[in-house]
């Protein structure tokens, strides 16, 4: 009886067996890479804003505290985007004719709000609360990066669940004293000592169950 399959099918079957393991594995690796990449997470992407507001200038240059504008960061889940009136506290006096600030002045005089594009966006099924993180010693820069060095604001962290859990599982690696929360330059020299102490002092729990964020 003649052979049903030609000899070349041997090669084909070897490639298939190899492929089943490696090609599919490679494809999964590529997909995994894509969903974690800035392409999917928007990490590092600046968005067009009505006014090219520079945190670098206002925070590093002028030394304005985060809470001057983000007033509710210590009390509410939402840190707060400043109302136009906050901008005009200063810009009624300085740079009153700058073209760049025309939308701000227009907003203030017409009463129509500025419409900003959200930079840090979580899905609707995630509930994040700023105030408790601030209270437990999570610095602004821990999640938002060196915002004082951003001419245009972008999302410094991937904001994936894996990234959240990194800290929720090991808070001692990230927490800082409460008085350093708003300090952009804070660097812990001995985090391995400070961290566990703060976790104890601040009663920081390792909250990793689902309803911590999802409800």
């Amino acid at each position, binding site marked *: 009886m003649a052979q049903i399959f030609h000899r070349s099918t041997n090669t084909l079957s070897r490639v298939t067996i190899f492929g089943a393991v490696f090609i599919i594995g490679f494809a999964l690796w590529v997909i995994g890479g*894509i969903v974690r990449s800035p*392409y*999917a997470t*928007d990490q590092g*992407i600046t*968005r*067009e804003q009505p006014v090219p507001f520079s945190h670098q200038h206002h925070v590093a240059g002028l030394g304005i505290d985060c809470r001057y504008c983000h*007033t*509710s960061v210590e*009390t*509410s*889940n*939402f840190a*707060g*985007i*400043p*109302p*136009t*009136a906050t901008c005009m506290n200063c810009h009624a006096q300085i740079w009153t004719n700058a073209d760049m600030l025309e939308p701000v002045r227009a*907003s*203030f005089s017409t*009463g*129509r*709000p*500025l*419409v*900003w*594009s*959200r930079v840090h*966006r979580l*899905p*609707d*099924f995630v*509930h994040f*609360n700023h*105030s*408790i993180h601030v*209270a*437990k010693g999570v610095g602004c820069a821990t999640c938002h990066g060196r915002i004082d060095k951003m001419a245009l604001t972008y999302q410094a962290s991937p904001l994936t669940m894996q990234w959240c859990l990194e800290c929720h599982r090991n808070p001692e690696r990230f927490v800082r004293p409460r008085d350093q929360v708003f300090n952009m330059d804070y660097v812990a020299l001995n985090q391995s000592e400070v961290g566990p102490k703060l976790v104890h002092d601040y*009663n920081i*729990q390792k*909250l990793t*169950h*689902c*309803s*911590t964020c*999802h*409800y």
Partner: protein
Amino acid sequence: MSEIDFREFRKRIGDLRGREYWRSLEELSRSDDFDEFFAQEFPQQAVALDHGLHRRDFMKLMGASVALAGLTACNRPAEKIVPYVKQPENLIPGKPIFFASAMPLSGFGSGVLVESHMGRPTKIEGNPDHPSSLGATDAFMQASILGLYDPDRSQVVRHLGEISTWSEFIGALQAPLKSPGSMRLLTQTISSPTLGAQIQQLLAQYPGLKWHQWEPVNRDNVRDGLRMAFGSYVNAVYHFDKANVIVSLDCDFSDSGPGHLRYARDFATRRRVRKGATSMNRLYSIECSPSGTGAVSDHRFPVRPSEVEGWARSLLGGGQPPTAVQAAILKDLQANHGASIVIAGEDQPPVVHAIAMAINQTLGNIGSTITITDPVEVTPVNQLASLRELVNDMNSGAVKALVIMGGNPVFDAPADFDFASAFKKVPFRAHQSLYYDDTSMLSHWHIPETHYLESWSDVRGHDGTISIVQPLIAPLYNGRSPHEMLGALIGGLDVSPYDQVRGYWMGRGGQPPSAVTTSSGQPGAAALQFETNWRQWLNDGVIAGSALPPRSASASTNIPATSNRQPATGIELSLRPDPTIYDGRFANNGWLQELPKPQTKIVWDNVLLVSPKTARDIGYQDKERDAFVNERQTTLVDLEYRGRTLRVPLWVIPGYPDGAATLHFGYGRPHRSIQVEHMLGGYYETMPAGTVGVNVYPIRFSDGLGGGGGAKITRVQGEPPYIIACTQEHQSINLKDIGGDRKIIHAGTFEEYRKDPHSIVESEEPDEEMIIPPIAYNGHRWAMVIDPSVCTGCNGCVVACQSENNIAIVGKDQVHREREMQWLRIDRYYRGSPENPEVFHQPVPCMQCENAPCEPVCPVEATSHSAEGLNDMTYNRCVGTKYCQNNCPYKVRRFNFYFYSDYDTRALMPMRNPDVTVRSRGVMEKCTYCVQRINAGKIEAEKQDRRVRDGEVRTACQQACPTEAIVFGDMNDPNSAVAKLKKEPAHYALLAELNTRPRTTYLGVIRNPNPEIKP
């Protein structure tokens, strides 16, 4: 139930202890059909698959999927943030603010606290400072938030059906105002002092103008009865917390009527039996239609409505000699001189109210358990007489102009008045209402009305306490408040309701009217004082000390000896407002339409309630009824009443008197809206004109608003059975499946409890053996205890949960397929004979089992255990296998078979709770113990470096409950209310022997029957 069945039944309760409790007649007779129906959680599943997918549709869908698959990788569109230009003071973005207000219903206000997120009202809570609420809410209050956003509300002024403007309407008003003698004003019941003052001003300004009042659920009987007793119009306020013995003469005081939330709470304070209790109140309920009050009573006597008067007379003495039972009640009443209450229901004729007050007078209750005050209404009138006069004047041509403020008289006026044709004879007709309804369509002018959450006003509570009604949001749909309407009538000017309400109170020197004094201080100081007072009133939600002062009064005991009431012949028909959509005004509210009626558990329909025997008499046999249960159908009957015939679905209910029938009015509005239409599904073939339910108003006559005798019921032959969506047997705990006869309800008497507190619950020890190691809960240990002893089944908690947790409504078709979404259900159980069983209501939320059977079966770990013992449900992880639902012995999980959440209607978006995810299709959901509230409470506590205090976190159902039957808290805190309840002798867990270790547990029901009355 045939005779043979009865013997069978008696044998059953004789033999089997576990089958002592039953949920429905079908279960009791235990037909084969029932078992088959019961075994399946979703018996209608197969039907849903009937709509076969064609190959072409499949290709179309799949083609779209492939095309869209490419798009999913693209970057998400930018989301916008719109901050304020000038941020209001005290507003913290992301934090809700609560404002005090009051919800008026039929003239009586209940205090509310409205949760507002960034200017959007999202949730109603009760105002703990308001005497009619004490922090509790009923279903109507909870659902009013949906009524506010309802996109079907009228949005424009209309003239002859065409869009017009408010100023044109004011212009058009001027002509009829020139001859006020032929002008009439028709309003609903008004207790608002400002509205009252405006109407008085109007009447003074236009002599000859007449004011009429009408509401289909009016309190004419109560008013006239109290007038008979006290000689003038008065208001009676009851103090159930002081009463040891209560006799309800067809009065559902705990679930309906002014002050019912307060009454329910006061009643419950004397009913909760805890360790060491020495006393408990006793309630006798003499009623026709099963009510919430009847369900919690110790003795319930089902009688036809016309027989109540006989009972009342016997209790008073002088009528027929009392029966043994009546004598025992009388003895009980007399033993509690000055500490009892006899209360008559709104549907009983005035004489019954007068008799009740005479009994109270004899018993010394007036002044102790009953306070008599001036009337709460601005001008109490007999509304039926008022409307009759108006209709006569319209027919005679004396009325040239009629302005109707609120209400829908074309739909709800007594049938014999033929309001519509009289109304059409009026040359100028204007109607102000929330919806463009039947009356609007017959009017020349229609003015959209503001919702109570949109406009300033004031209102009195059941004891006369005044609340300022403050708006939460500017009118969404161009509505005009009644104050503006009256302002336009008086001055033709636009005066804001705020100025009118504030102006009225400023005129009273900042004092409540009872305390008006001539001002002697500086005008500046007075104005300042007013500002302080005004802010205080708005903050508190009540004007302190504005309750009407008690009047010294004594009721006449001189009652006409003979009744002029004809004994009812044939079947006596009782017409009642619907328990969930009231007189029809809430017919467009999906939450209320889909709310199971407290006693029948029917949704989206009204039915004719009859006793099992009456049903048999008209040829509807038990076997047939039981067979219908598999398809959830019932038979249609023709109800002949005073020459008119209605075709209605029949419903057999235990504990109902023979020879009577109850029908709820409010349904069957001919003109319904898009929202309701959307929810109908395809099940209304058998109803005429495609209405939701049956319109009962055509058989509601002026000489018998509550019904009357002489009705005849005949079965409709040759019609297909009518499909009913009844949730009673849905998602029920199936004892058969989990092995054997267990008790879901444990009940006993107070006497037994005092002898041995542990006798109420037969403890069933769980098998503690486990293959997984037990978890130590060191932090919080959230738990709930529910006390069904005081649960009246009022449904307040169910709607509160729906509102708090963004729970979707699904429509009749889907409910019929057992897919209702309410996380909290109230199961109804009976015990005893079907003629007069004891009724038990048992709210069932998620049990939050420590050994949760749902968790190990989830293939994707979408449901998992939290460190505090919550059984978490992660929507974004769920792939919709429904294994968890299948494995839950308590049947508390709900699955989104379709896109039930309305993602499209923009008007409903701001209504949702921003703290809770809106669930999509294919996702399982269930009660979370309001984890968003737990998290918020924990965050606040953590920020202050302390533990959550007991009572700081309250679930939505707990907060709404008028009788405080639901208690939630941290079991690890030994001083918490919940931890104490867990140690009660009558405490038990549902299906404890399964060792699921549920966190939600129950107390045994304790009742206090009179030992002298044998059941």
